């Protein structure tokens, strides 16, 4: 057991975020009047409310203990990397290369050893992707690297 660090961090962050939104809105946009609300009115109110809620989250968390719920850093990294690789490569090399790479990156954090199932899964998902998106839905996606196929 340890202090409820999640709520402390998030409550603090949300309070500051709300404050920043309110201040930014007050400085940048016209607040207007109750009758003629300007574009700054709603953000100012929302930012203020969030700041109060953030404090309301922090206060009970100071006096409370909580179970440990660790952040899954490795999984977070692998999933983000898989998404980014897909986004960066798709245009350049097409789904035939991007998809297996993404799958292999994603499975790198799977709690199961072995290489065969990873390769097989990469092949199956690549074929499925082609069948669903290119063949059935006729999305205009590059399949092979540019220049390879006329």
């Amino acid at each position, binding site marked *: 057991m340890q202090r409820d660090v999640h709520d402390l961090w998030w409550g603090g962050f949300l309070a500051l975020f709300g404050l920043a939104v309110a201040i930014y809105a007050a400085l940048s*946009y016209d607040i207007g009047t109750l009758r003629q609300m300007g574009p700054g009115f709603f953000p100012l109110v929302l930012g203020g409310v969030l700041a109060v809620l953030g404090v309301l989250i922090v206060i009970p968390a100071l006096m409370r203990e909580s179970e440990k719920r*660790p952040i899954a850093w490795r999984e*977070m990294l692998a999933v983000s990397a*898989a998404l980014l690789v897909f*986004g960066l490569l798709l245009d350049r090399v097409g789904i035939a290369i991007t998809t297996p790479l993404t799958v292999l990156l994603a499975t790198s954090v799977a709690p199961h050893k072995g290489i065969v199932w990873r390769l097989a899964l990469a092949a199956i998902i690549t074929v499925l992707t082609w069948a669903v998106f290119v063949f059935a839905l*006729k999305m205009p996606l590059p399949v092979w690297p540019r220049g390879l196929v006329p």
Partner: protein
Amino acid sequence: MSPLDGLMHGLSVALQPSILVFSLLGAILGTFVGVLPGIGAMAAITLLLPISYYISPEAAIVMLAGVYYGAQYGGAVASILLCLPGTPQSVVTTLDGYPLARNGRAGLALFTSMISSFSGSIFGIIVLVLLAGWLSQMATQFGAADYAAMMIMGLIAASTIGSARPAKSLAMVVVGLILGLIGTDVNSGVQRFTFGQTELMDGLNLVALAMGLFGAAEVINNIRKTERHTPPDRVRLSSLVPSWSELKRLPLPILRGASLGSFFGALPGTGSTISSFLAYALERKVSKTPEKFGTGEVEGISGPEAANNSASITAFVPTLTLGIPGDPIMALMLGALVLHGVQPGPQMLEARPDMFWGLVVSFGIGNLFLLLVNLPLIGIWVSMLRIPFRWLYPAIIVFISLGVYSVRGSSLDIAMVAGIGIVGHALAQAKFNPALLLLGFVLGPLIETNLRRAMLISRGDPMVFIERPISCFFVIATVALVIWPLVKVLRDKVSVRQESL
């Protein structure tokens, strides 16, 4: 159009092959994701959102709705056989469903849940037809103040009812509202929180936000969890047929659950999850043997299952007739409709009869299909439970990327999904509910517009919210919702002090 004409018209729409196929596809897909722990209706609808661009709006909405109610059926299967609710709506079903399955009566539990789900849905459809017609006429009397008050009540209800920490839920809603501010202010044309980025002028992309929160984040949350499930025993079709004395126990709980669910489903802010919990409490209260609940009472399955299915149908009432989504899934549905250029509202019944009545009839067809197909196919669903998550999530990641990319061919959007996914995971570990963020995001611009219009009409007099009867009702309900948790906290404190004395 009278309800009967409407239903006939809907039948002609829903039976068109191009619509029927997507309706049944959605229902099956929904059951599939409902059975699989780790992927819910929310994630599935999000993943299908971009694909729905490629089909007609009617087919798209019918398919997405099919995923929603299909997931209710599937969720019950995982709840009963594994005690692993596939969806939040089916958590209650574990209480009596799993004990029944442990006692070798899995068949009875599954049959009860299927027949109750089906009956609840049919009840919900009837309520939807009656209520939608009435409400679209009522809606002409809804002013800006009434809309604003109703939406604010919906948001507060969604974050306070049944929430252990209302401040955290409300904070999620407000973050959603703030994210909804990004983009061009419709009233003044001012760019808010865009920081000079032209991509942000139309606001944050709903698809990217939903994909990050319910796709990427859910994958990160679940990779480590429950890699292996204990394979359930084989369920034979013959064991699905209940005895006459068991059958006799079902109609009343179904009727009570369906009535309860229809009511809370149509109310903004309360939805199928809350309905199922309330129905369970009600069944326990009226039972002659309340002490047996939790050991495998069929009433504990049939009431909640009827309730969550009827609620998931009547949830479409405010979404379609007022254009106001009452829960996060409906917010996603509304987003899907708007992406297709359909603006739900009081004119929907008249202006888009194909859409409205086609959807209503597709509910009936889809539910009947699930009832007829799911019982014989139960063996297939059981084997689905054995699919390890590691085979699924890489495909989900590819699906997310392609879905987001297909919206406007932007690699930047995929990067945004990755970022939102990281934040979503951190939120989930801190037990925040990201679904509420999405609800706030979709409702935000609607609330602001109506609030500003109401104040303009009333010349800056906030009393307008109390003077108008409809809005006054919602204001009172909102105040009650805020005060109630405070009263409860104080009462608990007092009772603790008394005990310590």
